[in-house]
């Protein structure tokens, strides 16, 4: 039973990493929209963030998996899960980026502009390296939450850890054992991440003081 359930871990990790990666990229656009000079762009960005966050992830998952199939966009359970969690992650990570941006001195952006840096260079060479230090602990913490959210994918039939535990519980009647195993597996996955986040956090604070 342990082996069968733990084989699902690869999908738990895969869903978490791929939706995190999607969210990390689209999140840049979300943060950009939220801090755009144009009021209407900021408004759209804000509305987007509010709409995504005000509805439970399970509802979005069902909208994407069952709802979009009805209008002709048929996704496999795995695709639907990664897409849904990716979009949700983009909103939360975008807000984390925005928090990091707020700690950056605006003068730096003006100075880069004065030196003739393009937007892409400004983002990758000036903004990203500096805010990465301040935002990475929050990003890891969010990633841990995302990993727990990935358990929801079991409700639309992705055969990850929770789904497998559920199968085992129903076929063997040993529900307590099955769910204790899967619970322990989530804890084991999150412990190293948590330790890493705490270390990164202390480190970033140290550097901040020295600067």
């Amino acid at each position, binding site marked *: 039973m342990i082996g069968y359930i733990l084989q699902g871990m690869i999908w738990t990790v895969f869903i978490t990493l791929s939706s995190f990666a999607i969210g990390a990229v689209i999140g840049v656009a979300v943060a950009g929209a939220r801090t755009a000079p144009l009021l209407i762009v900021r408004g759209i960005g804000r509305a987007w963030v*509010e*709409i995504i*966050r*005000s*509805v*439970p*992830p*399970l*509802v*979005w998952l*069902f*909208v994407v998996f*069952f*709802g*979009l*199939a*009805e*209008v002709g966009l048929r996704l496999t359970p795995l695709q639907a899960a990664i897409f849904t969690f990716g979009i949700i992650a983009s909103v939360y990570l975008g807000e984390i980026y925005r928090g990091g941006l707020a700690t950056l001195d605006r003068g730096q952006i003006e100075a880069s502009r004065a030196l003739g840096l393009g937007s892409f260079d400004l983002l990758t060479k000036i903004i990203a390296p500096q805010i990465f230090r301040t935002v990475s602990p929050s990003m890891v913490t969010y990633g841990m939450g995302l990993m*727990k*959210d990935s*358990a*929801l994918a*079991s*409700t639309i039939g992705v055969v990850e850890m*929770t789904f497998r*535990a*559920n199968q085992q*519980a*129903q076929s063997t*009647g*040993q*529900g*307590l*054992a*099955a*769910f*204790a195993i*899967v*619970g322990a597996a*989530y*804890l084991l996955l*999150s*412990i190293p991440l948590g330790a890493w986040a705490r270390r990164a956090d202390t480190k970033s604070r140290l550097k901040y003081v020295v600067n």
Partner: protein
Amino acid sequence: MDIQTWFGYVVELLPGLVTAMQLTGISLALGFPLALLFALLIDIAPKPLNWIVIGVVEIGRGVPLLVLLYIFYQGLPQIDIVPSAMVAAVSAFTWSTASYATETIRSSIQSIPRGQLEAASAAGLSGVDSFRFVIMPQAARIAIPPLMGLAIIMFQLSSLAYVITISEVMQSAYFLGTKTFNYLPVFLAAAAVYASITIPASALVTSIERRLAKHV
């Protein structure tokens, strides 16, 4: 698909909303006091006991709520405890709420300078009194906005109770979806039902946060 039919869906989901709010309300009413107890036990209880509490809190935070729900509903029957769906849901949600709130309450209490306790004791207040009249009122002001935020998150998470046959919003939506085959409008109606509660509630939390921060 006209707008009237869609509003009809929204109306059909409202009884589910009542169940979702009951589940959330009971879990918060049990979870918050439990969290205060946990927060105090972690700091003042003797060694083995405080470790047990830390363990309970870490499991409550580290294991997905979905798995906690399954542990109560499908796990306990293995050892001949068969809780009803609602009892299982309340237990899992209370555990989760208490675990997250424990951290919030602990950090709020710890953010009050130690000197205040010393001053209270110098002024002749007993330990209990200085906690009740000096630390608590200040810590509560710090803890209230994040705890309200947690309440909104727990309300959203009540959608998970769908997996153990609680007839809350998602369960009703799923049923309505299989009946009408209009999955997209039905689940968007569910989204609207949740948003109609969470958006005003979040706005309220933000305004309370501002008002409380004024006097700090």
